[in-house]
C-alpha cells in the first residue's frame, strides 16, 4: 500500500506547529498504525530528517500511552469498525493511496510536548486528588469478609478498564475530561472499599478536573463514541448523582 500522510509537526511546546505531508511506501495492510509511523520514521532517519515523535508502550491496547487523532477522530475511530486504540488500528482499515490526517490530542489541559506527544499529567493530578482508597496496611483480610455484590462488582470492573488514554478529552467539543473522571469515580464508588471516601472523592477529583483547565460536560456524547474501552456515558450520570448526594453530607465540607 501507499499512504499519503499529513502529520502535525511541532518542535516543542513553545513553537507553532503545522501539518506536513509525507508519502509512505511499502505499507503492509497487516501493519498497525504505529508500525506504519515506524516505517516512515526509519525513512526520515535515513534521510537525516527529524523522526515524528509519538507516544506508545504496550502496543496491545492496554496501557493507554498511544493515541492520535486520525482523520478527525480520536484513535481513528471513524476508520475502525470497532472501538480501538491507535496501536490496535490496522492499515487494512484504510484504502491504498489514501490521504490520512494525523494530529495530536488538542486540549488546553494536554499541552503538546512535541509533534504528536502531549502532556497528560493533568490526569495524574485528578487521580492524586482522590482516585485512591486509604487502607491500613497489614496482612490481607479474609476475602469473604467484604462481600461485593455481583452487579456492582461488574460495573466497577467495566469502569476500571479505562486506560487513561485521553481520547475522550480529545474528542469532546468542550475539551472536558468528564468520561475519564466518571470512569474512576464509578469504579471506586461501586466497591465496598471505595465507600469511606466516596463523597469527598467526587468533590476533590472534580475540583482538580476543573482546576486543570478541562472544559465542562454538556452531554454531547463524542467521548463515549471514541473510547477504546467503551466506557459508557452513564458513568457521568453516576458521578453527578454522587456529587449531588455529597452536597447534603457532612464529610469534606
Amino acid at each position, binding site marked *: 500500500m501507499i499512504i499519503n500522510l*499529513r502529520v*502535525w509537526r511541532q518542535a516543542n511546546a513553545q513553537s507553532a506547529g503545522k*501539518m506536513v505531508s509525507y508519502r509512505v511506501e511499502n505499507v503492509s495492510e497487516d501493519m498497525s498504525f504505529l508500525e506504519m509511523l515506524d516505517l516512515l520514521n526509519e525513512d526520515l532517519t535515513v534521510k537525516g530528517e527529524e523522526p515524528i515523535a509519538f507516544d506508545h508502550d504496550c502496543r496491545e491496547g492496554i496501557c493507554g500511552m498511544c493515541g492520535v*487523532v486520525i*482523520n*478527525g*477522530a480520536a484513535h481513528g*475511530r*471513524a476508520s475502525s469498525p470497532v472501538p480501538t486504540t491507535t496501536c490496535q488500528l490496522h492499515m487494512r482499515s484504510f484504502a491504498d493511496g489514501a490521504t490520512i*490526517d494525523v*494530529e495530536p490530542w*488538542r*486540549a*488546553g*489541559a494536554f499541552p*503538546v510536548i512535541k509533534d504528536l506527544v502531549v502532556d497528560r499529567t493533568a490526569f495524574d493530578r485528578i487521580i492524586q486528588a482522590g482516585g485512591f482508597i486509604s487502607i491500613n496496611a497489614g496482612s490481607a483480610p479474609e476475602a469473604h469478609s467484604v462481600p461485593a455484590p455481583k452487579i456492582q462488582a461488574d460495573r466497577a470492573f467495566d469502569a476500571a478498564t479505562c486506560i487513561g488514554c485521553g481520547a475522550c478529552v480529545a*474528542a469532546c*467539543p*468542550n*475539551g*472536558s475530561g468528564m468520561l475519564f473522571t466518571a470512569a474512576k469515580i464509578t469504579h471506586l464508588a461501586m466497591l465496598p472499599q471505595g465507600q469511606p471516601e466516596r463523597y469527598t472523592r467526587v468533590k476533590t477529583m472534580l475540583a482538580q478536573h*476543573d482546576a486543570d*483547565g*478541562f*472544559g*465542562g*460536560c*454538556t*452531554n*454531547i*456524547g*463524542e467521548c*463515549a*463514541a*471514541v473510547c477504546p474501552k467503551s466506557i*459508557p*456515558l*452513564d458513568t*457521568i*450520570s*453516576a458521578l*453527578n*448523582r454522587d456529587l*449531588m448526594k455529597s452536597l447534603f453530607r457532612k464529610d469534606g465540607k
Partner: protein
Amino acid sequence: MAITGLIMVGFLLMHMYGNLKVFLGADSFNHYAEWLKGDILYPLVPSGVFIWVFRVFLLVAIVAHIWSAAVLTGRAHAARSSKYAVTKRLSQTYAARTMRWGGVILAGFLVFHLLQFTAQVVTTGFQAGATPYDMVIASFSQWWVTLAYAVWVAIVCLHVRHGVWSALTTLGANTSPKARAFLNGLAWVIAIVLFVGFMIMPLAVQFGWVK
C-alpha cells in the same frame, strides 16, 4: 444550567397549554389572560402580585441560565484553544452542536416577543391596549408573523431536544444505555409536543379557522 433549563421547559409547557385557549373563543382566552395577570393566588396575595413574583422568578432563571452558558462556553474555548485541522463527528446531534448560537438567537426572538405581546411596543397589526385575543388574531393573520414564529419555535424546540436530555443526564437520570435511549426519546417527544402545541394556534389563525 439543568435546573433553570427545566424550569423554562415547564413554563413553555404551561404557556403552550394556555395558548390553546384561543380555540375556546375570545371570552375564554381573554378571561384566562386576565386571570394570569390579576387573580392567581388572589385573595391570598393582592390582585396582580403573583404575576410579578412569577416574572421575577422566570427572569432569575433566564439570567442564571445565560450566565452558566457563558461560563461553560468560556471554559470550552480555553480547553480547545488550538483547533483540529479536521474533525469527524461521531455521535453528536445537530441540536447539541447548536445549543450556544441557537440559545442566543432564541433569546433575541424572546425580546421581540415580549416587546410585541407583553409591552406592546412593537405592534403587529393591532393597537396597543387591544385584548389578548385581538392581538393574537391580528398578528397571526399576517403570514410573516406566523412564519417568524414557526422559525422561532423550531429553534426553541431544537434547543429543548438537546436540553431536556442533557438536563436530566446532568441530574443523574442516565443510569444505563436503555435510560439513555429513553431520555433522548423523551426529549424528542417534549420538543415535538411543544412545536405542534405552539404552532397549531397561529396556523389556525393564519388559515382563517379561528377569527
